[in-house]
């Protein structure tokens, strides 16, 4: 599969000269299968650029997998051109939440006064609550599981014949754990990330910043590196950069965390536009 990052920023879009290298758009990742299946992970502001790129060769079917419904993950929905094309069948998957269904929750944003177009006006959209078991989407086997982040949030594990991608964009596995990590079976997200070829994982804070943000649902870089080691991944891509961090900050904080952790796996700071081939061709 081929993975392309269209938005890597966390919490709030942060455009500007200081963030041009890693990008200012919020979460959106394109996953292409060898047979053409298109998955889109999250609909942050980065999805607008993806929509424009699809204009010439829009697929007939798109699967849009939302991790959760915080604004930085859905704000781009109304600007994703494919959603307005009746020829494109879009299947939107999101976390289940018992009392209120996915449509009602999404409609709170996609309706006036927050947005001029209503969810029901989108011509070819089908909503699905992601089951907590493996399900097949085109050529991919997808596993969704709840992870530690405020509200109902899922991470995704996506497998094809060639390899495995794990996507945990907003994740605080160290919450309430004084000496992170605990054993793997007591660690949020382990089931999704175990042995992944490529892990996209929240790395919003430095270890110094984390104590002021405990419970906000995000990780310090050091926690991210420890989690990736526990899960025995091959390649970690840090994601959900803090909007207050410049490119230089991301470089510096990552270098400091890596000097401490000495990871044995590849670590890359997630940058808008970056492409990763997962599996045999990696």
């Amino acid at each position, binding site marked *: 599969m081929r993975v392309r990052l269209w938005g890597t920023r966390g919490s709030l879009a942060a455009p500007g000269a200081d963030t041009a290298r890693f990008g200012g758009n919020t979460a959106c990742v394109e996953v292409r299968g060898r047979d053409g299946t298109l998955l889109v992970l999250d609909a942050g502001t980065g999805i607008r650029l993806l929509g424009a790129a699809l204009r010439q060769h829009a697929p007939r079917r798109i699967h849009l997998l939302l991790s959760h419904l915080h604004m930085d993950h859905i704000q781009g929905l109304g600007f994703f051109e494919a959603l307005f094309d009746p020829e494109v069948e879009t299947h939107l998957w999101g976390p289940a939440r018992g009392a209120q269904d996915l449509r009602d929750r999404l409609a709170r944003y996609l309706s006036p006064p927050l947005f001029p177009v209503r969810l029901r006006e989108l011509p070819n959209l089908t909503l699905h609550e992601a089951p*907590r078991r493996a399900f097949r989407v085109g050529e991919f086997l997808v596993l969704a*599981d*709840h*992870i*530690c982040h405020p509200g109902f949030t899922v991470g995704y594990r996506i497998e094809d014949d060639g390899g495995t991608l794990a996507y945990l964009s907003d994740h605080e596995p160290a*919450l309430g754990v004084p000496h992170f990590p605990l054993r793997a*079976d*007591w660690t*949020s997200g382990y089931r999704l990330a*175990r042995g992944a070829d490529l892990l996209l994982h929240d790395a919003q804070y430095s270890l110094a910043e984390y104590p002021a943000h405990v419970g906000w649902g995000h990780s310090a870089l050091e926690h991210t590196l420890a989690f990736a080691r526990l899960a025995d991944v091959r390649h970690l891509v840090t994601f959900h950069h803090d909007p207050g961090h410049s490119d230089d900050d991301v470089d510096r904080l990552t270098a400091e965390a890596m000097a401490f952790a000495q990871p044995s796996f590849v670590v890359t700071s997630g940058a808008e536009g970056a492409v990763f081939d997962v599996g045999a061709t990696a």
Partner: protein
Amino acid sequence: MVQKPIELILTRQLASSLVMPIFLVDPSGTLVYFNEPAEQILGVRFDEIGEMLASEWTTRWKPSDADGAPLLPERQPLTIALEQSRPAHGELWIQGSDGRRRHIHATAIPLVTVSDRLIGAAAIFWEEPS
């Protein structure tokens, strides 16, 4: 190693942050965790004994009623919560691993996810001052 459900992980993390004694079991009844305040009452550290089957923990601390008669597992709050998926409260006497007999109150609740899946049960208990 199979990861436990996130709801159980979060319950453990909550328990580890509280001063009330809390005891957690998985859907099969296996003891999977108790916190430090519970260690004070049970007389042993969780790390020393680790996970334990229901057949072991329901007798290990010799639970009994006020008359000293053994309290069968099906009358213990945690077993009721797990097997009947409802809250249960009870008063019982146990003997900690340190040999001391203690009078405790226990309230147990089933842990059920938004998808209506039972992923275990938690008991909060406290010791009656002697």
